[in-house]
């Protein structure tokens, strides 16, 4: 199940979308999600589908790969459908016992399903085409203005990138500890849910201790390399807007205008 989640994964290939500035992708994804909630009729959704389809086509990421990520949210989708379909008041169409389906219910359900699917595809397309590094750089830059409000933007971005760096290391460590405990007759696979959770304790305790130790070492290494927060820091790979980023913004604005016009007209 965990392996099926494509959200947050990077798909390595060459495309215009991959080369776009991460800031463009972040802003576009955010605006796209907002536009999904602006859209209120068939034309709006058709436009969103067109926009998304175009982006997928340009990104060179196989559609199959993107859809595989949808499996993970199938459950969420199912719950949304059940709740909206059966619990929306309106003109009754079908009634079995206390369960009734209304015309309003069907309308909202269809809307929600499309919204959710577009939302997930849209945001996973962003992570599929942007390396985690670029993503944190982009976030730091896009959220930069929040520094005025004393939001520690640089620190958050640094934490994210360190977390990303250490995920594989800690995974490996988990595996190692697990094997060591299994060699001493620990059992991680049988028993009921509570029993299994209890069995995880001998795995989690050493893992946490080691993570803290690593954090301490890393902090020392960073300090010894003159790290002193974001002020006065230069960037090895600064983000610079190119012509294609301008074009992307233009397309985004056109899309948003079209969406608003479609919503008001119909």
């Amino acid at each position, binding site marked *: 199940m965990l392996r099926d989640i494509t959200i947050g994964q990077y798909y390595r290939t060459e495309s215009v979308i991959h080369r776009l500035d991460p800031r463009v992708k972040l802003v576009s994804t955010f605006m796209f999600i907002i536009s999904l909630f602006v859209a209120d009729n068939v034309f709006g959704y058709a436009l969103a589908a067109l926009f998304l389809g175009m982006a997928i086509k340009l990104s060179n990421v196989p559609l199959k790969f993107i859809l595989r990520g949808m499996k993970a949210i199938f459950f969420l989708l199912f719950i949304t459908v059940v709740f909206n379909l059966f619990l929306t008041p309106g003109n009754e169409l079908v009634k079995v016992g206390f369960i009734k389906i209304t015309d309003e219910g069907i309308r909202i359900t269809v809307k929600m399903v499309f919204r959710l699917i577009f939302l997930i595809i849209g945001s996973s397309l962003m992570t599929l085409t942007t390396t985690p590094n670029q993503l944190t750089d982009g976030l730091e830059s896009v959220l930069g203005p929040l520094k005025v409000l004393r939001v520690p933007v640089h620190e958050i971005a640094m934490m994210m990138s360190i977390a990303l760096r250490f995920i594989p290391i800690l995974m490996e460590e988990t595996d190692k500890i697990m094997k060591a405990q299994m060699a001493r007759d620990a059992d991680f696979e049988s028993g009921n849910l509570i029993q299994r959770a209890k069995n995880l304790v001998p795995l989690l305790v050493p893992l946490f201790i080691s993570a803290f130790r690593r954090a301490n*070492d890393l902090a020392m290494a960073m300090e010894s*390399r003159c790290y*002193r927060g974001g002020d006065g*820091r*230069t960037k*090895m790979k600064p983000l610079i807007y190119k012509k294609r980023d301008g074009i992307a913004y233009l397309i985004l604005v056109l899309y948003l205008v079209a969406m608003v016009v479609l919503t008001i007209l119909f």
Partner: protein
Amino acid sequence: MIRTENLVFEYIRRDEEGNVEGITRAIDEVDLDVKPGQFIAILGHNGSGKSTLAKHFNALLYPTEGEVYVDGMNTEDDDHLWDIRQEAGMIFQNPDNQIIGQVVEEDVGFGPENMGVPTEEIWERVEESLKAVNMLSFRKSSPNHLSGGQKQRVSIAGVIAMHPKCIIMDEPTAMLDPNGRKDVIRAARALNSVEGITVILITHYMEEVIYADKVFVMDKGHIEMQGTPREIFAQVDRLKELKLGVPQVTLLAHELKKSGLDLPEVVLSREELVQELIRLRDRNGK
């Protein structure tokens, strides 16, 4: 380059409730003087205070008593803190826990970024540093895919990119396999002889110190012995008392000499021993 005067470092031991159990003197009145361009080795078994000492050279720890000077700057002087950390780079034991970047070249650029070096110069520095440790071909790799020795060389490059005058290596080879160890020591020696960077190598592998200009042996926070590797390894029995060995070749030569062969006092390398044995054979053959 680095000078300590009467350096003492104490820390307070506490039990689980935080009550003071006692005071441990990790470093006890250490005086040492490292000249620019030297290759220095500090030896000692676990808990001898050598790592604690190293952390003083980079202003990661401050003396309880006495002074530490790096290039004439007192480490307790806050105004010079960042100058000291730039001039005296530090390599730690665990290669995984000191690499910050997710790509080799980004990690090497981390130090210069922190120092506020302009972007173009960062790229130049990254390239020359990776070249200096022979890791340029890995610049786009993820650190997770490198071997221990390679990671440690990346860490060294990360320090070189800050253009330090001195590199302090705190057991850089302790977690590496023999090949990785050789590579790291080779890189350190090259930096010392080619770039003229002062190197302070802290280790408990005897084989690594034979190239040093000067060796300090630490025990219980004291400097017990100091001198050239030849002078140090001449005292095999004294070293054993300090729970330290000597390189295998040196030990072999020592034992051979004890049993009557006419060998010099100290033999440091295999080549040297072979030479001496050939000399003996030729002399006896005549």
